């Protein structure tokens, strides 16, 4: 091939274009300073007809939609909601964060929050939270998760708690007391086996997400906490999941599995359908997301009790989503207006509690709606119980929630495989936590 001056020029041009574009591309890192909410905006921020964008993940769509509709109806500001599938939320937030495209407000699974605050995705709202009249009663677990180097970035958006549900009809048939759920781990095992003993086609004692790290975290950690033990050290860098209480929990599920009292679908359940069998009335008793009380009550006569430990106690995983103002927001004062409204009695009681969602403020646990349904009271009370926790770890996702995480490997070995690998599996979790 001969080179004419023309093609040489063309080549130079191409090279120039490529390097120029690359240089341009890298100019937009996550530079820039995070927005601050101005202090003269007052504790309620600004309501001046700004259009705000809000992102959340699909599992909380119903609650988010309720909140956004109520806010839009009563305010000049208008919030536009974008829903993303649960499994793809991190992808989307990551892509947007990299190019400075985050929305004004975005919610995040509370276990991601430490990682994201550390990465600087949220704006600092420490001073604004302090100005709130209800500051003292906001759920501490969520506030702690959103605290980084003594600055606060996140407020609770929707609380999602884990509790024990049981099917009263099946309990009656099995000769159990339909008004009395399990109060210890041993009782849970007995009651599940009793339902299994009915020997009905398609009916099982219990169910769980056997291939779902998040489900295991959500439902098994409280059993350890209620027994007075911990799952990690304070800093969230060392796993303690080889403790006595944890071992008891694994043994319980292994026993149930070997007795055939677990739904066959549990073994490869990745979390997409882990409560479906209970909803269809085919499961006796299982730890369950409290947010689904309303929906599940339509098909099943549900009893509710806190998740017990080895010898009693009560605990819950204070999960759900936190929400903050993003580093890219151009209207932080208006965004704060939404957050301050979110903490108000109106949002917490009239919107959330009215729809059976646990309020994120301890002083509202005994609200008018809870008084109508004792089951809701049980849920609200356990949210503030001494042994209830929101676990904190910067690498929580990799260690526990990610598909195929070391935690999934650990509990699958404990329930289905070689239980002798506990030490090294626990070591693998520690390794993931301390990276």
């Amino acid at each position, binding site marked *: 091939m001969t080179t004419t001056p023309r093609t040489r020029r063309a080549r130079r041009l191409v090279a120039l274009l490529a390097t120029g574009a690359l240089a341009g591309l890298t100019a*937009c890192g996550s530079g820039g300073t995070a927005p601050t909410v101005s202090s003269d905006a007052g504790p309620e921020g600004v309501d001046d007809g700004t259009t705000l964008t809000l992102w959340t993940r699909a599992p909380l769509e119903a609650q988010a939609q309720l909140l956004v509709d109520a806010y839009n109806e009563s305010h000049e500001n208008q919030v536009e909601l974008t829903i993303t*599938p649960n499994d793809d939320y991190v992808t*989307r937030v990551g892509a947007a964060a990299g190019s400075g495209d985050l929305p004004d407000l975005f919610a995040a699974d509370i276990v991601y929050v430490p990682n994201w605050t550390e990465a600087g995705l949220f704006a600092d709202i420490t001073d604004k939270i302090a100005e709130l009249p209800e500051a003292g009663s906001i759920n501490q677990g969520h506030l702690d998760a959103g605290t980084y180097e003594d600055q606060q970035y996140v407020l609770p958006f929707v609380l*999602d708690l884990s509790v024990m549900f049981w099917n009263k009809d099946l309990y009656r048939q099995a000769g159990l007391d339909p008004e009395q759920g399990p109060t210890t781990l041993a009782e849970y095992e007995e009651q599940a086996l009793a339902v299994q003993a009915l020997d009905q086609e398609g009916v099982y004692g219990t169910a769980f997400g056997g291939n779902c790290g998040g489900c295991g975290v959500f439902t098994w950690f409280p059993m350890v906490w209620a027994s007075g033990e911990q799952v990690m050290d304070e800093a969230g860098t060392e796993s303690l999941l080889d403790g006595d209480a944890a071992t008891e929990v694994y043994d319980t599920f292994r026993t149930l599995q070997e007795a055939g009292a677990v739904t066959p679908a549990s073994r490869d359940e990745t979390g*997409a359908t882990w409560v479906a069998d209970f909803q269809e009335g085919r499961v006796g008793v299982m730890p369950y997301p409290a947010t689904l009380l309303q929906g599940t009550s339509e098909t099943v006569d549900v009893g509710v009790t806190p998740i017990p430990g080895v010898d009693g106690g009560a605990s819950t995983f204070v999960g759900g989503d936190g929400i903050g103002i993003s580093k890219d927001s151009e209207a932080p004062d208006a965004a704060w207006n939404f957050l301050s409204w979110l903490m108000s009695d109106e949002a917490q009681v009239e919107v959330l509690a009215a729809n059976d969602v646990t309020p994120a403020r301890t002083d509202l646990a005994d609200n008018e709606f809870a008084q109508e349904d004792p089951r809701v009271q049980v849920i609200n009370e356990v949210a503030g119980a001494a042994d209830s926790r929101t676990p904190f770890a910067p690498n929580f996702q990799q260690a526990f929630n990610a598909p195929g995480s070391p935690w999934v490997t650990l509990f699958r070995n404990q329930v289905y495989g070689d239980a002798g690998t506990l030490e090294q599996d626990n070591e693998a979790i520690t390794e993931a936590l301390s990276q």
Partner: protein
Amino acid sequence: MSAPAPARPAPPPSSRRPDAVPSRGRGGPSPWSRTPTYVLTGGLVIIFLFPLIWAGVASVSPQAGTAQSEGWGLGNYETLVGYQAGVGRYLLNSTVVSGLVVVLTLGVSLLGGYAFARFSFPGKDLLFLLVLAILMVPYATLLIPLYVLLAQLGLQNSLVGLALVLTMFQLPFATFMMRISFEAIPAELEESALVDGCSTFGALRRVLVPAVKPGLVTVGLFAFLAAWNDFITPLVLITDSNLMPLPLAVANMRQQVMGIVDYGATQAGVTVLALPCVLLFLALQRHYVRGFMSGALKG
């Protein structure tokens, strides 16, 4: 979908017998010897059609835990229609994106195929190799840089930007297909047009485009199917829920509530996604197949 790679042109095919079946006399076999074949192929037809038919049937049949829990009906489709911005909006987005991708892919690959088949210019082979190299990069990796790049071009979060990216992913197959389509036409055809005083563009427009039509249909159909069905690309590139294409909306709907997959809505969504593709495919099947034949694909 991926595209074939070029190699040395094969010798031209000589005359072909449409029923070139070896070793069977022309006398025709007895019907008895055919029975096993019919049973086998019949079984294959059932196996290949079963999943599609099942999805359609399941989407209107009663299932516990879906919008259609009792009796037959369109409950799941109502879920679909009522979801967020409504199914119409998502269908429109998908249609716009797919239409753009088809037009862009056809335009770029027609000109590109012509250039690769009929011209020699410096850098030709390198450029062609680069086009094929698009196939070899895990596309999930390219999405983040593409996201950043589209933001630079002011095309982030727009259907146009999405269409440009999807077109790029279509280029290997489309360019290859158009190249062999042009190569299958005798060179004399173009030369005589040039002698008659056409410019190269005139020759392309008047003489060559009609000749490569089957190839164009194949390329257009592939581009449509790919753009209509793509899920990951819009997931990363589109951040405004009013601009979501249908597959993304269906995936969103699949997991409405923690721990429950709405299978009914999923099946209805798959049916709505698949129906236009299947109908279009059946309508264009004859042309599409001929597009493959006209190039007499050289390995």
